[in-house]
């Protein structure tokens, strides 16, 4: 489990940030992306995959959340 931060990038998509390792990456896809259910498996542009427990979408980004690493690129 790791603390990650989800934020908006300049193009309106999501961006992934892992403070512990200073890892900044784009998010290619998020499993659930509706106001009621948000999270699930997120795929990073760099090839990694993380899992956020599905939850109601945060009112404001950036948003820090615990995530599980399923598959990391490095």
């Amino acid at each position, binding site marked *: 489990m790791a603390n990650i931060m989800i934020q908006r990038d300049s193009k309106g998509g999501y961006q992934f940030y892992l403070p512990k390792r*200073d890892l900044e990456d784009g998010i290619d896809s998020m499993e659930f992306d509706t106001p009621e259910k948000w999270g699930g498996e997120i795929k990073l542009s760099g090839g990694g995959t993380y899992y956020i427990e599905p939850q109601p979408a945060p009112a404001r980004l950036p948003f820090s959340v615990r995530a599980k690493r399923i598959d990391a690129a490095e």
Partner: protein
Amino acid sequence: MTAMTREETQALIQEVLEVYPEKARKDREKHLAVNDQSVEQSKKCITSNRKSLPGVMTIRGCAYAGSKGVVWGPIKDMIHISHGPVGCGQYSRAGRRNYYVGTTGVNAFGTMNFTSDFQEKDIVFGGDKKLAKLITEIEGLFPLHKGISIQSECPIGLIGDDIEAVSKKAAKELNKPVVPVRCEGFRGVSQSLGHHIANDAIRDWVLGNRDTSAFESTPYDVTIIGDYNIGGDAWATRTILEEMGLRVIAQWSGDGTLAEMENTPKAKLNLLHCYRSMNYISRHMEEKYGIPYMEYNFFGPTKIENSLREIAAFFDDTIKANTEKVIAKYKPMMQAVIDKYKPRLEGKRVMLYVGGLRPRHVIGAYEDLGMEVVGTGYEFGHNDDYDRTIKEMGNATLLYDDVTGLEFEEFVKRVKPDLVGSGIKEKFIFQKMGIPFRQMHSWDYSGPYHSYDGFAIFARDMDMTLNNPCWSQLTPPWKKAA
């Protein structure tokens, strides 16, 4: 020498790598790359933020350097104790030329060195008592200080001193913030982790201190984050922002004060110059206080203009109109600078190897003068820095991460740039090789280089170095052809 092709640059890298043993070669290979603007993600071509190899000459610093030297050190009205043996503090004292206004030793302490001067008995029996005594002494001798930060040197972590407990007790007695910073030099691979630790310490011990107190804010409050006022950089930046009609409520951390830092959450926009050292705190403020941050670039008129417009876009039409006025006001002045120096500098090629934001930010300033940056690299950059650099650099130029002494020398010998910009340790090597050199960490004792005022000085300095008559006098008379 004309520009190298992609294959030539690749061949050069391979040639330089040949002297290494196989294992080292494999490792170093990942840190050297030929720039390709089509690459979206730097990690596909270059590895960064990894441990330096034992045995090579690295130019990196340590976590203590990142915390005390960069982030905390310039905060002028706090006393920063170099907790541990005397050398770390003494040899880094005032080296970065972070200018400030104040009376040193009375209400400002930037250029002074405070240390607990560890001796053998402190290592054996622990240094907490000494630290507590030191803090009491500081309070007696310098009553106008606004707070204390304790910057740990390596032994503190090794012997397991509890500086947090001492800090908490002292803070209560003094009724001033006492911040323990766990920035022991052995942590991490470079000064970069020191920045992170320092940012986290600010977040935990400083940032929320005035959340409940009143503050008279205006809609135009901004902060300058990640400008260390080297040679007066932050002042040059500040004047432009104020001319635009913005109010700068805090400078982080060049010429900054503790009160400014505590008031930063009241700002409307954080302007982030050095992304590498202060993105952590900016991200935190964006999440906790909803303050957006924006990276800007105040090197060279082209980039300044773009940045000013981007900053103005966050505000209303009066600011936007003011910004255009500011741009129009400085345009002829900058044109005069370019007209004067461009003919003397045009076509010259530059290689850079510095840290933080400069490997990519100064490229624009050189381009404004008609110069070309043919190689650049970060001491302690991460992948996100290289992501941003790839677009700024030309195709088939060299990128080198945590370059070793040997690689840097060989690259310069082969690429033959007209100017090298790096640190003081590299300066004399290259000058003896007959290559003009600027020390780009503290602007070679000149500055400011930021903003419009700084560009004029930047152009003059580059001309002064490059066109110095001494470079034609390098061959001694007895070696000259008759």
